[in-house]
């Protein structure tokens, strides 16, 4: 039988916009630049993964990240060997950068699922080109976050006591504790995000399986593709499952940071004990998450020439989201003052006084600048549409969200009820080394991801093309 190999190079097929019959609304800021078809999309994205030669920049980046991982492992060994005393924590400040970083990472870990799930339900098809990337980021952020609760305990080798299992002590976890809620929320979130991400990957893994030339690489991708063959029935169930997952992830993603906020809201320390923490934290998480997506997407699209797929439309939308969530966060900051004043409670009032004029006032001021002022630039289109300014603002927000957690955790603890036990908190070398290390871990994973997996969902990109539209007669009729 004749089997002519399809060797048509990418450049040859470049129909014009007219030929592609691209709807008007796409022209100004399209989610995908004109001139693409199934083949070009497929080849471009998969080639990033499959091309033989790895760019030098990637190696350099991975090397630096791996340095961070090294630092992390040193810090962890020293921590387990010596005790949490190597950190700056003390009485009264029992939680320092360990929990700050945990909350910070978890917050960042929200964008992915949010983009994938909620924007999917909202039929925001511009999400398509960034969701894969964001989901990966989520997973790696949650991985970094997970380090801290596990290692912040005084005796980490007994952490397994937090899991309910029948034991010779006849003891069980104490489920009234928000930390137990954390255990379940974070592990569920990690698992579901992983599944969601993997399900999204299956058809693309099949694509890579078919594109790869080396048999073993084919087999590896083939193994994870689980023999996906694009059957119509499979596609149907697949989309159904994906939609259900999205539906499940949406409340999940909201619950996770709600529960993280309970760690504080349930306690009665002034500055923690506030009923509006859940929405406040969730908004903060989205805020932080999108900032991190921008921080990563802007360099990535440049480096891998993905401007065609991650267009200015995406960046601008994310800028708008930054602005929206940023305003919610600022509202929360304002409410803290209102509640403090309205309660007339001396402890609350002093807590606010101490935040704004106490030893950590500089932190609090910086927090307002980063999370309050910087995002306001997003009101203006010329900032929203400038990758430089977007990146700058995103960086401000990243820092700001870390400061927010600092202000909430140590700055509330260090002066609580009895002045006799007031104290100060300062991060030590090991606090910072562990933080930097976790960032290293995050980026190391990210670098590996972009090298071995498609950072943009290929099959979903295909559906964005007008050719993807097909109609049965009945539909065609009217």
């Amino acid at each position, binding site marked *: 039988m004749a089997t002519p190999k399809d060797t048509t190079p990418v450049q040859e097929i470049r129909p014009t916009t007219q030929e592609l019959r691209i709807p008007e609304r796409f022209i100004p800021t399209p989610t995908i630049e004109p001139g693409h078809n199934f083949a070009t999309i497929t080849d471009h994205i998969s080639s990033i993964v499959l091309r033989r030669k790895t760019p030098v920049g990637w190696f350099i980046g991975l090397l630096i990240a791996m340095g961070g991982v090294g630092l992390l492992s040193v810090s962890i060994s020293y921590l387990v060997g010596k005790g949490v005393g190597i950190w700056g924590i003390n009485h009264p400040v029992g939680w320092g950068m360990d929990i700050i970083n945990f909350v910070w990472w978890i917050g960042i870990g929200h964008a992915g699922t949010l983009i994938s799930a909620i924007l999917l339900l909202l039929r925001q098809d511009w999400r398509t080109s960034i969701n894969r990337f964001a989901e990966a980021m989520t997973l790696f952020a949650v991985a970094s976050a997970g380090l801290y609760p596990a290692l912040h305990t005084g005796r980490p080798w007994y952490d397994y006591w937090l899991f309910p299992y029948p034991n010779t002590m006849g003891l069980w976890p104490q489920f009234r504790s928000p930390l137990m809620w954390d255990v379940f929320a974070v592990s*569920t979130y990690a698992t579901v995000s992983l*599944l969601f991400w993997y399900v999204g990957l299956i058809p693309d893994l099949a694509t890579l399986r078919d*594109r790869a030339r080396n048999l073993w690489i084919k087999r590896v991708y083939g193994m994870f593709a689980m023999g996906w063959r694009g059957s119509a029935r499979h596609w149907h169930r697949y989309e159904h499952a994906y939609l*259900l997952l999205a539906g499940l992830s949406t409340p999940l993603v909201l619950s996770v940071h709600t529960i993280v906020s309970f760690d504080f809201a349930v306690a009665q320390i002034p500055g923690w004990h506030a009923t509006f923490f859940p929405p406040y934290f969730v908004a903060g998480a989205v805020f932080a998450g999108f900032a991190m997506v921008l921080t990563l997407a802007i360099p990535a699209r440049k480096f891998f020439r993905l401007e065609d797929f991650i267009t200015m439309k995406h960046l601008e939308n994310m800028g708008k989201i930054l602005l929206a969530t940023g305003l919610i966060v600022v509202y929360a900051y304002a409410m803290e003052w209102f509640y403090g004043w309205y309660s007339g409670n001396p402890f609350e009032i002093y807590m606010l006084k101490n935040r704004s004029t106490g030893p950590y006032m500089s932190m609090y001021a910086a927090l307002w600048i980063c999370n309050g002022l910087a995002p306001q630039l997003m009101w203006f289109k010329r900032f929203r549409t400038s990758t430089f300014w977007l990146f700058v603002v995103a960086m401000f927000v990243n820092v700001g969200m870390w400061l927010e957690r600092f202000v909430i955790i140590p700055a509330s603890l260090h002066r609580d009820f009895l002045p006799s036990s007031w104290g100060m908190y300062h991060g030590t070398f090991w606090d910072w080394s562990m933080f930097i290390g976790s960032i290293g871990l995050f980026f190391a994973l990210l670098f590996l991801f972009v090298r071995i997996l498609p950072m943009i969902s290929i099959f979903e990109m295909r559906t964005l093309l007008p050719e993807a539209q097909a109609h049965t007669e009945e539909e065609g009729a009217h």
Partner: protein
Amino acid sequence: MGGIGKPIEGLYGVIGEFGDAQSLLDAATAAREQGYRDVDAFSPFPIHGLAEAVGFRKSHLSTIVLTMGLIGGLGGYFMQWYANVVAYPLNIGGKPYNSWPAWIPITFECAILLAAFGAVFGMLALNGLPMPYHPVFNVPRFDQASRDKFFLVIQARDPKFQLDEVRDFFDRLNPREIVDVPW
């Protein structure tokens, strides 16, 4: 190549390759109209209406997910109730043994977790995945199915399957090519 009316040894079916989604959809519809039942279509992305066109009726996924979710929720609550009320009741900060409000978060998380498992593994199971080996992979150009080509297969086990008729049928749809798919 066997006789009329009965499946042919070693033949899975006949597959036709098409250039775009529309023609695949039309082909699938045509095949159904021809009365073929064991038809399947392959595309690089989900095509609206294609599954129905090849005779897909209904997915039972929702039921599975709902059941799993309920199991998860009830199980989660039971776990907490058992641990803190039955197994070792302790006076924790003067709160009652059965402090149900404190148990809502974990109940919820457990429900979500199991429901998600239901969705993913249910989908895979219903799709009969993993299935790394499948006859259609024998089709030389089938690797294009995950790029930009569209395929329609009529299986040999279809009661109406007649090799020549099927080939003719495909010819009429003028696909890029027609291939017999061996087992």
